[in-house]
């Protein structure tokens, strides 16, 4: 994937929503999809099981229009959260420009959050880059549920790298766009940094998912 194509004046960013199963990744995308005017979005592709669990992945293309003469597009993906779909996760993760890690704020889900985060790190390493290099935003979701783990505790537990984080309640939409904005800016700024040091483009960006 060519991230910034100056010849075609296009910017395309691939953002992957990662996290354990049932943490609310698809819900994030559905909320965004519902709020974006028709001309700005493609069809949201969801491959889900009968019980609405993401089997493969969701895909939502967003067209932000021409910004500074650049046609800017965001491609939002979710990975299937269940442990046994790791091959699909790796596939979706390939070529990602940024990751939103959607953590479930319920206490009983903390272990799964950690496991998924480790899995993210492993999969990124397999793809050949360090999680520290990847624009990453943590979203502490389901804040609307009773008895959720306090944000500080979650920060301690999950955000040991000190990346931007935000709370959300994807079902009501709270924090969804805030998360999207944060990750988008992070991705764009990371591009900006890369272009400030004009070296050959990162290898991992050349292959499409």
């Amino acid at each position, binding site marked *: 994937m060519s991230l910034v194509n100056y010849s075609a004046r296009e910017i395309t960013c691939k953002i992957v929503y990662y996290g354990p199963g049932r943490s609310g990744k698809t819900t994030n995308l559905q909320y965004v999809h519902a709020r974006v005017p028709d001309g700005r979005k493609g069809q949201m592709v969801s491959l889900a099981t009968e019980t609405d669990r993401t089997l493969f992945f969701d895909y939502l293309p967003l067209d932000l229009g*021409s910004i500074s003469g650049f046609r800017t597009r965001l491609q939002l993906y979710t990975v299937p959260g269940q442990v046994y779909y790791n091959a699909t996760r790796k596939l979706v993760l390939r070529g990602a420009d940024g990751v939103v890690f959607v953590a479930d704020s319920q206490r009983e889900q903390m272990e799964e959050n950690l496991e998924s985060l480790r899995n993210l790190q492993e999969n990124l390493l397999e793809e050949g880059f360090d999680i520290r290099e990847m624009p990453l935003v943590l979203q502490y979701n389901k804040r609307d549920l009773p008895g959720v783990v306090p944000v500080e505790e979650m920060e301690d537990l999950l955000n040991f790298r000190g990346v931007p984080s935000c709370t959300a309640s994807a079902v009501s939409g709270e924090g969804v766009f805030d998360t999207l904005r944060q990750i988008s800016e992070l991705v764009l700024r990371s591009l900006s940094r890369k272009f400030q040091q004009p070296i050959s483009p990162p290898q991992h960006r050349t292959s499409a998912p």
Partner: protein
Amino acid sequence: MSPLELDPRFTFDTFVVGAANRLATAAARRVADAPGETYNPLFIYSASGLGKTHLVTAIGHHARKVTPELHVVYDTLEQFMGDIMAAIEAGERDAFRSRVGDVGLLILDDVQFLAGRHRTQEELIRVWDAITARGGQVVLTSDRPPHEIDALDERLLSRFSGGLIVDIGAPDYETRVAIVRRKAEEGGHTLGDGVAEALARIAFGNVRELMGGLNRLLAVQELEGRAVREDEVAAILGQSEGAGEHDEFASFLAEISDTVSELVEATAVERRLADAILRWEGEGYRTRRLESALQAGVGNDEVEAVIRGFEADVERLREIAGEISALEPDAPELVRRDILRDPDRLAEAESLLGEVRERTRPLPPPPEGFSFERLALSPDLFAVRAAVAAAEQPGTRYNPFFVYGPGRAGRTALLAALGERLQRTAPEGTVAFVQGAAFAAELIQALERNRVDGWRARYRRATALILDDVDALAGTERAQDELFHLFEALHRTGAQLVFGASRPPQELDGLEERLRTRLESGLVVDLPAEGEAEAELRGVADEAGDAAEGAEAVAEGAVDAVAAEARDAAAAEAGEAPESIETAETAGVADAAETAEAAHADDGADAVESAGAAETAGVAETAGAAEVAETAEPAAVEAAAPEDPAPEATSSEAAAPETPAPDAASPEAATPDASDAVARHGDSPDAAGEDDIARTGTDPWFLSRERVFWDWPYVEERLVEDWE
């Protein structure tokens, strides 16, 4: 046609340029500066309310200012096509089209309404072609790119896409602030601190909505007689604290837009390269080099050098294309856009130009100051007469015409005179005159410069080629090869070929056989050395006896069926006998003519020879020659191939072009029925002569007037053989 007036408010000066419209504005300025020369058409698209109409109206104003005589038409598509249709209905289609043809700049707004209107599209194609054919500029606006206009005719789609397609995006925050401030200023209003910023922060979908917001604020200020405060803006415009659903995305978009703007603005190097790529792509040039630089990443200090280098190469490509076009407007090289529009292939473009230059370089003309009239040589010289004759029917009479002789100056003068005559009688033709050494040297030079194709094509333009001093080509390989192919090519086109050498072809050492045989396939004449010229007639008289011997040799040759030249000559004799009578008369040797006629009546073929000899040596030899011929007859008949029956062989038709094998000729010469053939030839000398030319390279003109010299080279050849 009643086009709309250009709105005087919409100029470049009043257009606020931001990141989202910078490109469109730059393109618009270029078009306005030089309509029809850069992006044609310029297709601007955007959502409504972002300034398309303002920008294209500004183009119209600016173009009028820069080029006052330019006929500018600004119209909406609806209005314009309505005019066309009205004209068609009124039966004034042609008048309308001719009016439209004068348009130097056509600006059509909202062409998306073409969707699905086939007849309108048809008409637009015609109007379009009428305008652009005269170099007119077309500027179009639409709310979507061309390929998204439904049911758009492929021809229109390709026309729309043929120039530059550029979009205008929603203005970023800073631009929105600038727009608000400027519009307020233009109206003479004052906004409180932070009001413009507060207004700009609201995510309006387009500038028109932004203006609506501003108008509302200004109305509040006017009606309530107070200045609106920054914190009131959202409330006045009905923007609640928790933005609506649509607004959630809009504000996300606004914030992201700022970041994107920063990104692309921050990367100035890439931006600069990207602008250059876009510009040159728009003008039809390949931009691979710039794209590579973009991908590889070049430093700030390098980028200018890269772009300057690229632009210098583009400039050179333009010069090259211009020169090629000037040299040869229909040059096939001009369609090589893959090379002429690719700065990375500049070397190939230079090579194309080199080929065209080489090809169109004037061919070396015959040296000046020579003509048959001013020739120092005697006009009676056989070679001179033959040259004059060759010039009378170039390409058909003696082709090739080969002059040899030791006196280079005289030979060159004769060839130059021939060249002058050829050029004078056919001024539209191209006579090339080149010395053998120069020919070889030119080839080497062309090889060195890799311009052989051009060099070759250049010579093939010639309607006549005179190559003197063939001797210089002796021992060359490529030059002879090239000359061979040139010979074949020119011969096919009917160009006159003339060669000069010190010796006859068969005596030129180091000449390839295929070339040598071609050089002698026409007429080979001898030009005696200067000083010898006057003695020529005498010399001929002295040699008359030998000539008779030569005639013997003819007979012998016929019997043995060996020497091709001899047989050819003998065959010629069979057909040439009757004309020789007239020839002798015209040549002013009446007495000899009578004798010859008498001799001829008795003998067929050899009467020719005898006639030739008669002029200078008398009739006695003629009789002798005739005897030789007679004695040769039986053998000759034997020598005739079975499929070559005697009656046919005796007729001139037997010597038709389709039977060029010299073997067929030998019996003709000596056949006992030769006199019959002669008699028939006497009835139609020209036809007979034509046949003979086809076979032997000799010619009816020659036969009818120059009996005395009827085959001088042949005679001389025999003499030389005897001497040796």
